[in-house]
């Protein structure tokens, strides 16, 4: 469970199958802006909907400079499931 304002780092994707963690947002630092509640975890849901856990979904904000390079402008916000995130101090 992440609180609003928590600093997180996105993980590398954990599956070769379906995931909702976009490639361009892997291993990037971000800040949790909101928890949207729990939804069936897509990485499991795509394999077997009967065995998908309900997992917390967060809106995470990234600086485009962290996602790309110094040419990035503005912010990117994406909705990411808890298993995609690890805490960052």
């Amino acid at each position, binding site marked *: 469970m992440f609180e609003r304002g928590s600093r997180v780092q996105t993980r590398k994707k954990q599956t070769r199958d379906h995931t*909702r963690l*976009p490639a361009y947002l892997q291993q990037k630092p971000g800040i949790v802006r909101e928890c949207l509640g729990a939804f069936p975890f*897509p990485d499991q849901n795509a394999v077997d909907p009967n065995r998908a856990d309900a997992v917390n979904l967060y809106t995470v904000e990234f600086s485009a400079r962290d996602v790309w390079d110094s040419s990035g402008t*503005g*912010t990117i*916000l*994406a*909705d990411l499931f808890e298993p995609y995130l690890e805490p960052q101090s």
Partner: protein
Amino acid sequence: MSAHMHDHRKSAELSLRVKALVAKLEEAKVTSEPELDALVERFLSASRPENGYRIVARAWIDPAFKALALRDGNAAAGRLGIDLSHWAPVKLRIVENTAAVHNLIVCTLCSCYPIALLGPSPPWYKSAAYRSRAVRDPRGVLAEFGVTLPQNTNVAVWDSTADARYMVLPVRPAGTENLGEEELARLVTRNGLIGTALL
């Protein structure tokens, strides 16, 4: 193979798979082609951008409604009698443009879009070019739509990666203080609700 050809081949494959699936469901007497047609027709006839325009116009004239819309989009839509129940578990989020921030909506993974509020999405929204470039170079994409923002306006790109759908609440145009709700609704455009136009 060009990306365009690739899209065509994928769509042909998909349409064959859907046909095969419908045939199986008909065979099993689960549903029928006419029943599915009626379902799609009912959904699409209620799914028009005017739904989004009404939410925006009401939010511009009613601060309490605006606060509700920004806090709980589903509740705000419900207040205006707009039916979002066919995608019940989906959360509707409305994000507000101000002088400080301009919001832009994209779905980089597929083509998630609030169809019930905006009607079917325009072809460019589903294109690989828009989906990849909106997050990499939002100001460049906006410029191609004719939108140039002050340098100190932050561009916030919302990538609809999961169970929420996004709609922009545009800035109310100057000089519209005397207009009523219906007249205001007529000023709103679909692209304004995606963030690729200013009003």
